[in-house]
Structures are given as C-alpha cells and as structure tokens.
C-alpha cells in the first residue's frame, strides 16, 4: 500500500524465545515473516504459546531472546501504546463505564484528533460493522455478537495497519461465529490491513486465512496456506491436528523416490508417499484422510497393496456417510463417503477390501 517497491516483510519474528519463569520456554525459536496485507492465523492447542506470541507483538510481554520487527523496524523497545497496533481481545475488553461511541472515540482522543473528525470516524467505523444505531448504549446492553462487532470497530477506528485478534469469536455460538468469520475476512481484505489471528478452531483457521501457522509446544510445526496444510501436512502432529485423519504405524520396507512401502505392525503392507522418512527400517506413522480411502475395488489402481477391513459401524450424517472399520488391528479407522445416488451403504459385519492412491497416504515421522 504505502510504498509498492517494498518487498520486505511487514511483520517479522526472528529467533524469538519467551520464558515466563526462567525455567520453561513457552515460545521456542519462533521465526515468522508476513508480507503486508496478509491474513495469518496462529492455530494450535491451548497452552501452545499463541497468545504469548501475540502479546509480544503487541508489546505486553517482552521477548526473552530474539527480535520482532514491524515494517523493518525493531519494536522490542517500543512501548505498546506507540506501536499503533489494533487489537481485539478474547472477552472484547470494551470499557464498561463508557458508551459504545465513547469506546470508539477513546483511541482518537488519545491521538488528539479534533472533535468533528472524531465523530465522523466513529460513525464510519460503527457503520462498517452495522452498529451505527448503538452508539449511545453501554457494552452491557449489547449481545455477545454485537459486542464483538464493536470490539472490531474499536480496533479499526484509528486505522492501524496491523490488527491482532486473540480468539475473538470464542464466545459466540456456531451460527454467529460463521457469520463473523466471513465478515472479518471480508473487512480485512477490503481495508487491506494485515491481520494476525489466533484461534484453536481449525475450521476457523482454514476458512479465514491466507496462511496458517500451526503451533505446538512453542514451535511452529507448519506454516502454509490452508489447502496445503490440509492436503500436505508435513508431520504427524499437523496431520492429526488439522481435520480428521487415520493413522497407521509401521516400519519402512521399501523406498524409492516418490514411493514407499510400509509394513504395518500387523504385518500388512501398504503403499505411501515418503515425507519424513528416508531409509528402510525407519519407524513411521502413515496418515490418510478418511475421504481418500476407497473400498470400491474396481476404482483402485492396479498393483497397489490392499487391506482387509471389517465394517464396525455405519453412521448416516446427511451429506456424508461415516463408516468405522477395523483395519490392521485398529478399530478407529474411518471412511467418509459422499451421499450420492449410487453410493454403497456398508453394513456392520461386512468384510471388505480397502485401498488408496499412494500419493494420498503420507509416511510421516513416528
């Protein structure tokens, strides 16, 4: 936006570490670089250090080690109120003793913007989130969804280039959440702002983001666009954390380029694509998505290995069928099929054969 020639990163974490107690590293060696205008989501289980990263970026926690840069400038020593970063908190943090309009006016007042400008900007921001009629109310007189919108408007009203959101939709019900997800992404793209969004809800992360950083135990496990993250997880944590996933364990039996054969602990052989394995004899967890499992033998590729399976349970879910199988000694293997007119409905007790395309089955770290 500002200078189009600048190809450098807008937000950068370089070798950032954080410890609260001097004993445990909550954030371990974080490296991240975001271009301007990107919508990046930090996704991870509770306690994985997402909020801590956000707080370091906002300036409420100091990094124990490493450097955080904003637009090329190190911000380690800049106090929070001078960083000009908008922030939406999980519980909204709307000031209860001020009206909605006063809440929005606050960041403009501290910036010494004169009254008429202020009122215009507040009105514009409220209209942007369709809350124009509520300026005179207090936060406690609004519903959760309305408070959420106001919090968003307040974070945007002073026109920051970077906005941080820490699980902003966590307290809303499912329908409202989906609506707000759409509105937030829409607004972000329209205004061209850079967003760092924190959530533990993977659907939210996948639907909203340009890129998702999957956190675990203070590290980014994978940083990739949503489709890549889902289809090409780089390790077994990501594979299991994102979407539903079948895991089988075994040892690499053969390996050549893009193909590998894995001998499962039950003795069965399967074909897969080596990702984190490189030599024969290595232990591995193979990961296959439920919707990529095929039991219609006619559709399977010639010369690939197949597995025997017993149907344990058939669940009708409307748009899809979810079938649970016993495969290679495990009884948590799931197959998902689309509810199409010609789709087979498997019966419990039925003995079938299953298989998949070798490139859909990823041999990951053990």
């Amino acid at each position, binding site marked *: 936006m500002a200078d189009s020639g600048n190809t450098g990163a807008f937000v950068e974490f370089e070798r950032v570490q954080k410890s609260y107690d001097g004993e445990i590293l909550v954030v371990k060696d974080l490296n991240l670089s975001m271009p301007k205008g990107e919508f990046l989501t930090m996704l991870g289980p509770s306690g994985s250090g997402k909020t801590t990263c956000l707080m370091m970026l906002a300036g409420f926690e100091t990094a124990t080690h490493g450097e955080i840069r904003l637009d090329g400038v190190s911000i380690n020593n800049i106090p929070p*109120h001078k960083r000009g970063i908008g922030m939406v908190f999980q519980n909204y943090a709307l*000031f209860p003793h001020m009206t909605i309009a006063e809440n929005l006016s606050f960041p403009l007042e*501290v910036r010494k913007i004169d009254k008429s400008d202020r009122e215009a900007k507040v009105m514009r921001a409220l209209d942007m989130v369709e809350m124009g009629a509520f300026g005179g109310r207090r936060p406690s007189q609004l519903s959760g969804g309305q408070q959420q919108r106001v919090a968003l408007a307040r974070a945007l009203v002073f026109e920051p280039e970077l906005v941080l959101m820490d699980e902003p939709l966590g307290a809303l019900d499912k329908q409202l959440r989906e609506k707000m997800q759409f509105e937030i992404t829409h607004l972000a793209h329209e205004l061209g702002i850079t967003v760092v969004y924190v959530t533990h809800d993977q659907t939210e992360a996948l639907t909203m983001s340009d890129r998702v950083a999957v956190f675990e135990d203070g590290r980014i496990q994978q940083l990739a666009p949503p489709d890549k993250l889902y289809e090409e997880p780089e390790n077994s944590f990501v594979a299991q954390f994102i979407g539903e996933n079948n895991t089988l364990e075994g040892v690499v039996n053969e390996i050549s380029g893009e193909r590998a054969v894995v001998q499962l602990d039950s003795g069965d052989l399967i074909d897969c694509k080596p990702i984190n394995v490189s030599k024969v004899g290595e232990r591995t967890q193979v990961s296959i998505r439920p919707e990529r499992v095929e039991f219609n033998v006619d559709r399977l590729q010639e010369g690939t290995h197949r597995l025997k399976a017993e149907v344990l349970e058939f669940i009708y879910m409307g748009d899809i069928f979810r079938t649970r199988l016993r495969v290679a000694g495990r009884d948590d293997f799931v197959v998902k099929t689309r509810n199409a007119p010609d789709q087979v409905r498997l019966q419990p007790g039925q003995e079938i054969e299953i298989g998949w395309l070798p490139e859909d089955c990823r041999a990951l770290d053990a």
Partner: protein
Amino acid sequence: MSDSTATGPVLAADGTPLKKSLAQALRREKTRALLLIAPLLIFVLISFIFPIGKMLFRSVENDIVADTIPLTVVELAKWDASSGELPNEDVYAAMAADMVVAIAAKAHTRLGSRLNYEQTGLSSLFRKSGRAIKKWDLATDAPFKEKFLEIHDGWGTVEVWQTIQTHSGRKTSGYFLNAIDMQLSPDGPAAQPESKQILITLFKRTMIMSMIITISCILLAYPVAWILANLPARKANLLMILVLLPFWTSLLVRTSAWKVMLQQQGVINDILVWLGLVADADRLVMINNQTGTIIAMTHILLPFMILPMYSVMQTIPITYLRAAKSLGATNWTAFWRVYFPQSVPGIGAGSILVFILSIGYYITPEIVGGTKGVFISNRIAYHISSSLNWGLAAALGAILLALVLILYWAYDKIVGIDNVKLG
C-alpha cells in the same frame, strides 16, 4: 385446553388460575425465607432497634417535671412570666404540696438535676429545700410563699420560676437546642452563653477530621489494594494477612502503641532527633492533639478501606488496561480513564464505611486525642456516664444519625448508591 386459555385467564394444570397458584407457590417460599431470618430479625429488634429507638426518644422526652410537680405545673401555667413579678400564693402552695409527695418518693433531687441542666444552681436549691420542706405540715403551715422565701433566696427570683415554667412541658426541644449550642429560654430559643458553646465546634471537628481520615485512608489504601488485586493469588493472600493482622490485636493495644510511637519521648521523635531532622529541644507534638487522632485512626480504619477496594479491583480484568494501551493510551491515561473509573465503586464503599465508622469513633480519640482531638462521640459518652444528661446525649446521637443519613443521601444523589460495591 388450548381453547379455554385463548379466552379466559391462563389456568394451571389443576384448573386454578395460574396467577393464583403462582402466588401460592411464592407465598410458601416467602414464609420459609421469613422463618429462616426470624431469629436474627427478633434479635436485632430486641437488642438493637428497640433500645436505640427508646434512647432517641429520650432526646425530646420531659415527663419528669410534669410527673414530679403536677399541681405546680398547672398553677404556674396561669402565671405571666413576663410581668416581672413573682407567682402568687397558689403556685407556692401547689409547689409545697408537690414537694411533700416528691420528697417522700425522693424524686425532688432528680428534678433538681434535670432543671440544673437549664439553670445552674437549681440542683442545690431543690436539695436544700427538700430538708426544710420535709418538716412542713401542709394543713397548718399556710401561707407558703413566705416560708419558701425563708428557706432559700432562689424561690424569690423570677428566673427560677421562669425556668420551671419553660421546661414544664412533657415534650421539649431543649435537648436539641442544647446540642447545637442554644437553649430554650422563656422568650424561645436563644444562644447559649459563650462559655458553654462547644458542641457545634465538636460536630464540625468530627466532620472535618473524619473527612481527613477518610482521604488519608483512600490515598494509603489505593496502591495497596491495587497491588493485592494484581499479585498472583499466593502472594496476594500473604499480603492480605498483613492487612488483616491489625484485626487480631486489641484496638486498645494498637491505640496505646501509637501513644508510645508518637509521644514526645517516643520512637518517632527519637528517630527524627537521631537523624538530626528535629532539634532535641523542639520535638514534634504528635499526640494528644488532632494529629495524633488522625494518624491513629487512619491506621485503625485502613483495612476497612483496603478490603472493599481490593474486592472491587479484583473484578477489573487486566485486559482493560492492555486494551487501553493497545488503543494508544499512555500508562497514565489508561489508568485514569479506564481503570480508575471502574475502581470508584470500591472507593465509594470504603469511604462510606470509614467515614461512618470514624464520626462515631470513641476509644481512639479518647486515648490519643487530648482535648483538641476529641470527637462528638466522646462528648456523648461524657453525658451518658459522667454528667448523666441522657437527654442531651440522645439529642447529640440523633443529630449524628441524621448527619450520616444526609451524607448517605447526598452520596446517593452524587455518585449513586448502586455504584457502591463491596465485592
């Protein structure tokens, strides 16, 4: 069923109107709740409300004159006090008759003490006269005017009779007038003589010093409450014990400790002299004056300020401050515009508590206040236990109560009582 509900009143399952069955259900709950609080209610009524009501009633009650000398009161009512002449023989005869009865019941000295509040000397007049009148024979000794004048000159002064006449009503405003440094004279309310004017000064002093104490408590308690509210729970609990520690020591011990600390040969003066900040010759006077009272009472009432502040601050999440800073506010602006307004209910609750406790405080001003640092409550105590002028004590108490209620009302108008939170 749906047909009937569409037109008539809504019915419950058993056919009774819903409103009625709801009222029945609620009544049962209310009765149960009432029974549960009944013991406390009765206790409070018997041991608190009733005695206080009775005590306050004494501030206007004046039965003693009309009960002790009923005939005199009737006769005296006919006398024109402004004429400047003594009452006639009828009044003296009635007085003689009343006195004989009163002396037999030993009631005349009490009447004397009562009237002595209004005019000094009446106590001894009644006591001395009692001895002589005891020997009189009502049937044969008339006329009595001469005889009264013989016993004591007092009976020959118009003022004495004026005083008796003025205070012969069964209800009196005299105590309240006394309480505000006035008196009930034959010509209506008038100012007390200069030498007796002390109570208004005391009221003012009580108010002003209580305000100073409240403000010092706010200033000292706010940072402590802030730290308590923002510390991790374990450390906060430890600090909390320190705050509550004073409650475990007797009030008397703590106040006496301040005497040791503050007196001229006390710890603080010694340290100041040792540091060279104060010359040995002019050590600071910090006790037996207002300074002493303010210091000791601020210390003693501090927990009552810290606790409500703490419990209110505890409910203010730290994210508000962070939100304010992320919006561009400096530390100070964030505190002043966002945190402080939310902590006001705690300040309000603490201030009301401390102020009300303070204006009624008695022990501490008594011990460290000297003459300049005592409160109105010390005067009330004096009238209750030393001068035995309970009527005046009751009037002072009633005024104090009214002042508290007025302040409470004003606070409600200005800040709003819903804005007071104890937690």
